């Protein structure tokens, strides 16, 4: 039986879908069978981030309403044969599915895959409640900004009220130079305020936009980008390995940079 993990944030635009795509690819690269489920009905995006938008035939609402089999709606990734996407419906409303229907779908997926990652919509209404319905554990994602942290706190409260014992935190779009300048909440600040366990940190990286343009999650580039490295570390952290987050921000010495430049 696999594990179903919901990724949620409260606030929109903090990187839920990017995290789901990259962690999903990362787990698949490690050899696990992974299903990604987009529950953001009406605002489907996970297909775009994975470059699978042209392959969508059926969606989660079709499965819920039994218009197709679950396996017919699952889209196999172009690059990895052990990664699948169950897309959201684009032209339906959030209440097109019920919690029970989602729970049933997630349960079947758990019997077929090692990991089921659930991308939740922004907000704390019905869509959020649906997204968490079938999950065993949860990841909360935020950025070091007051509005995002406040919303994350609200979501953590709701997750705990719904029986999720230890939500894990990803802090996205961290800018070390702004923290040093005293113009951004630090990782420690956010952890102190929210008092939950850290899963990982992702530095701000232009490469994310480029990877979304191409429909290719940045983790495919391995350690060539900061965000790619960060997501690789997050996958390790999720699998229980100890990760040294300071290494992500360590300024490399001039010698190291020269060596890297000349490839020696």
């Amino acid at each position, binding site marked *: 039986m696999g594990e179903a993990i919901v990724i949620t944030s409260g606030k929109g635009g903090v990187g839920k879908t990017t995290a789901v795509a990259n962690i999903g690819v990362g787990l698949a690269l490690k050899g696990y069978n992974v299903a990604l489920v987009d529950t953001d009905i009406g605002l489907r995006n996970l297909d775009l981030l994975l470059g699978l938008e042209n392959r969508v035939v059926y969606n989660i609402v079709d499965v819920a309403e039994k218009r197709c089999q679950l396996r017919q709606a699952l889209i196999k990734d172009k690059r990895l044969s052990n990664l699948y996407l169950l897309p959201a419906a684009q032209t339906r409303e959030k209440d097109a599915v019920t919690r029970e229907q989602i729970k049933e779908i997630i349960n079947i997926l758990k019997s077929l895959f090692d990991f089921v990652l659930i991308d939740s919509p922004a907000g704390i209404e019905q869509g959020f409640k649906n997204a968490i319905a079938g999950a065993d554990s949860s990841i909360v994602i935020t950025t070091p900004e007051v509005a995002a942290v406040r919303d994350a706190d609200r979501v953590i409260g709701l997750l705990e009220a719904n029986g999720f014992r230890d939500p894990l935190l990803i802090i996205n779009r961290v800018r070390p130079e702004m923290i040093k*300048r*005293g113009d951004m*909440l630090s990782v420690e600040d956010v952890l102190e305020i929210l008092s939950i366990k850290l899963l990982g940190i992702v530095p701000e990286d232009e490469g994310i936009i480029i990877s979304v343009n191409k429909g290719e999650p940045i983790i495919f580039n391995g350690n060539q980008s900061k965000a790619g490295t960060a997501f690789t570390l997050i996958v390790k952290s999720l699998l229980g390995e100890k990760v040294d987050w300071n290494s992500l921000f360590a300024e490399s010495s001039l010698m190291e940079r020269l060596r890297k430049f000349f490839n020696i």
Partner: protein
Amino acid sequence: MSIFDWGGKHKSTRELAKERLQLVLVYDRAHLDPGIVDSLKEDLVNTISKYPNFDIKNLYIDFSQKDDQVVLRIDIPIKI
């Protein structure tokens, strides 16, 4: 940063953000609106001012976080 901030004890926006968050989350977690403190204070003043023993001018009222609980603290000095 202006020239007047040089060497001063000016708070960084990071500290400002942290303090504002910590304060607003106390209310959020207690499902209270910050305005309730003012309204509660007004009611308390109205009630307590009926009794001359209390120093109503120095009434102190505040919500704070204590472990998992949000605590309402009211201090009313007694006149001697």
